């Protein structure tokens, strides 16, 4: 069995560490790219949203490299994404690929027994001892939390760094080095060393950079390719960016959901504007926007793929939040277009808007 999985931000780093520890053969699809999107868009239904298309591209690029089993998380339909696996199975089947899908789903939906048997199937492929298997899982969780921490901090520190571009370089370097390390314990050490390096980056605490919070649909938030690397762009402009969504956020969220203690603060903050669940993470989007206002962010960027129903709902709520709280919110829609000019113009104009609102030219140090 050779497993593969679709990309979602930094998850490939954790998965690599886990499969390396378990001794299971795996193929990591090439980082989401234009070719993956082209393949995915060609084979997917036209109206389906962007995440689906990129995922199909990921699968096919992996299958071509020898993968025969796809592992995905389902979460049984918070929106269409939960039903993706069924449709993706039939798309791949129609193309003549013989692949097995293992859908790791929320136990509340499929039952603990079924979940155990699905995970058991993966775990039986490994010949390691049980304790080793648990350690593999532990390492993976630790790795993703470290990596997400490094990314989140780097994006925030970028606003304060003295040597321009240092945070971005460090982040790219970290990803690159971890990815090329096949010994799991060494990989974790690398992550820890980068965490330490990050805290040593010279910063100017007196500077008041523009602070932007990013909210919205989970896939376009986490998978940078889907949002045209918006955070990297913002880093180049010397802006401190904060985004709550990450794979480790999702892990925590899903884990705490059993106790109904998931994303408590965001959900409480959202209550005033959106009382009901409207699917996916729309409520969290609204809540995060309110929290961003309370935390004193200068502006909010809302990301969603074309045709995302839950986020369309939150989009219209965000308009009224923008008015009531007097905080600029810009919505960016993403689809198959790979042209950058339109996005750059919007982002630049948004930054200008925030800057002029503040009046003092914080970015004039460039």
């Amino acid at each position, binding site marked *: 069995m050779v497993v593969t999985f679709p990309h979602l931000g930094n998850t490939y780093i954790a998965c690599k560490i886990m499969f390396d520890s378990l001794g299971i053969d795996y193929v990591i699809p090439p980082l989401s790219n234009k070719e993956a999107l082209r393949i995915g868009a060609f084979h997917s239904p036209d109206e389906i949203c962007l995440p689906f298309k990129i995922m199909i591209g990921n699968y096919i690029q992996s299958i071509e490299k020898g993968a025969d089993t796809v592992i995905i998380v389902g979460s049984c339909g918070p929106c269409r994404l939960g039903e993706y696996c069924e449709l993706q199975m039939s798309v791949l089947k129609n193309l003549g690929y013989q692949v097995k899908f293992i859908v790791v789903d929320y136990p509340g939906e499929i039952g603990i027994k079924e979940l155990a048997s699905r995970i058991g199937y993966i775990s039986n492929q490994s010949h390691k001892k049980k304790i080793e298997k648990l350690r593999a899982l532990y390492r993976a969780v630790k790795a993703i939390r470290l990596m997400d921490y490094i990314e989140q901090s780097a994006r925030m520190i970028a606003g304060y760094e003295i040597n321009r571009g240092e945070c971005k370089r460090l982040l790219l370097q970290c990803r690159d080095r971890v990815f090329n390390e096949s010994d799991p314990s060494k990989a974790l050490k690398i992550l820890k060393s980068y965490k330490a390096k990050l805290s040593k980056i010279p910063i100017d605490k007196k500077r008041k950079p523009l602070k932007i919070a990013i909210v919205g649909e989970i896939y376009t938030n986490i998978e940078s390719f889907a949002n045209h*690397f918006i955070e990297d762009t913002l880093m180049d402009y010397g802006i401190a960016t904060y985004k709550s969504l990450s794979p480790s956020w999702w892990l925590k969220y899903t884990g705490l959901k059993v106790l109904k203690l998931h994303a408590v603060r965001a959900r409480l903050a959202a209550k005033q504007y959106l009382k009901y669940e409207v699917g996916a993470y729309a409520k969290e989007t609204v809540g995060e926007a309110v929290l961003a206002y309370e935390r004193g962010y200068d502006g909010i960027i809302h990301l969603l793929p074309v045709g995302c129903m839950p986020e369309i709902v939150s989009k*219209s709520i965000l308009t009224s939040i923008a008015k009531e709280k007097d905080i600029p919110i810009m919505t960016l829609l993403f689809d198959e277009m790979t042209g950058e000019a339109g996005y750059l113009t919007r982002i*630049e104009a948004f930054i*200008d808007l925030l800057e002029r*609102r503040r009046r003092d030219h914080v970015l004039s140090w460039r």
Partner: protein
Amino acid sequence: MYYLGVDVGSVSTDIVVLDEKLNVYDQVYLRTKGRPIEAIQRGFKQLKNKYKDKEVRAIGTTGSGRGITSFILGADCVKNEITAHAMAGVYYDKEVKTIFEIGGQDSKIILLNQGVVTDFAMNTVCAAGTGSFLDRQAERLGIPIEEFGNYALKSKLAVRIAGRCAVFAESDMIHKQQLGYDSADIIKGLCEALARNYLNNVGKGKDIQPKVFFQGGVAANIGIKEAFEKILGFEIFVPKYYNVMGAIGAALLAKETVESKRCKTNFKGFDISDHVFITNSFQCKDCPNECEVVRILDGEVEIGCFGDRCGKWNQKSHIKSS
């Protein structure tokens, strides 16, 4: 002393020369024809004999081709179209609250409060109502685009045309043509459809307050101006230099940059029109991003490089904007 502003749009390239008192002293309008560098060179050839390099105090670029042209011209300020249009609009009238800008490929709405941009939007998925669409329809009707607006004014009854989408609008229009409706009525109908489309699409959810400025090439079309007025119920103003507002904004921003930094201009001189610029693009294979990197060469010398994510190629030529 002069300030230069260059707006390299998808359809047209505009160059303005502002004098010391910031009045428009000269302007050049060119078709970009998909070749921004050539358009710029043609433009500067026209200006070359009238001005000296030393007389230029600042130069700014804007428009979708702002990046590439900034390398060639040595721009002091590279700004997006939204900021440039807002800047120019506010310069001419501090009272302006809303700016409609309809250009060749995109349309924008900019909301201002006391001269500060508070909100903006651009067309997302549909190009109905932009200049190139109108161009095409004028051609189909056999009417020169300059006359388009006047035709609309001749009509007394607008034919209803679907404005939701450019393709629907076009097929609706053909259908009405085939039924034998008068061209003037169809044009008026089209103008109204486009104004509706703009307000429903770009202006969706925006609080449109007077005073409204209508800028961009399409503002020449008096039919659309009238359609906007009919729907909104108040007067729309078309500024005198409506078609070069972006370039004026770029020049003003460049002036601001040079003055705040107290530096000299980076302007490379009018004789760039005689240089040979070559651009070549290649796909960087160093990582799976496979960025398409564009390199601009002035003869043999590399003057700019962009398109890469990691900054490996454009390190020498950092984005100067924002």
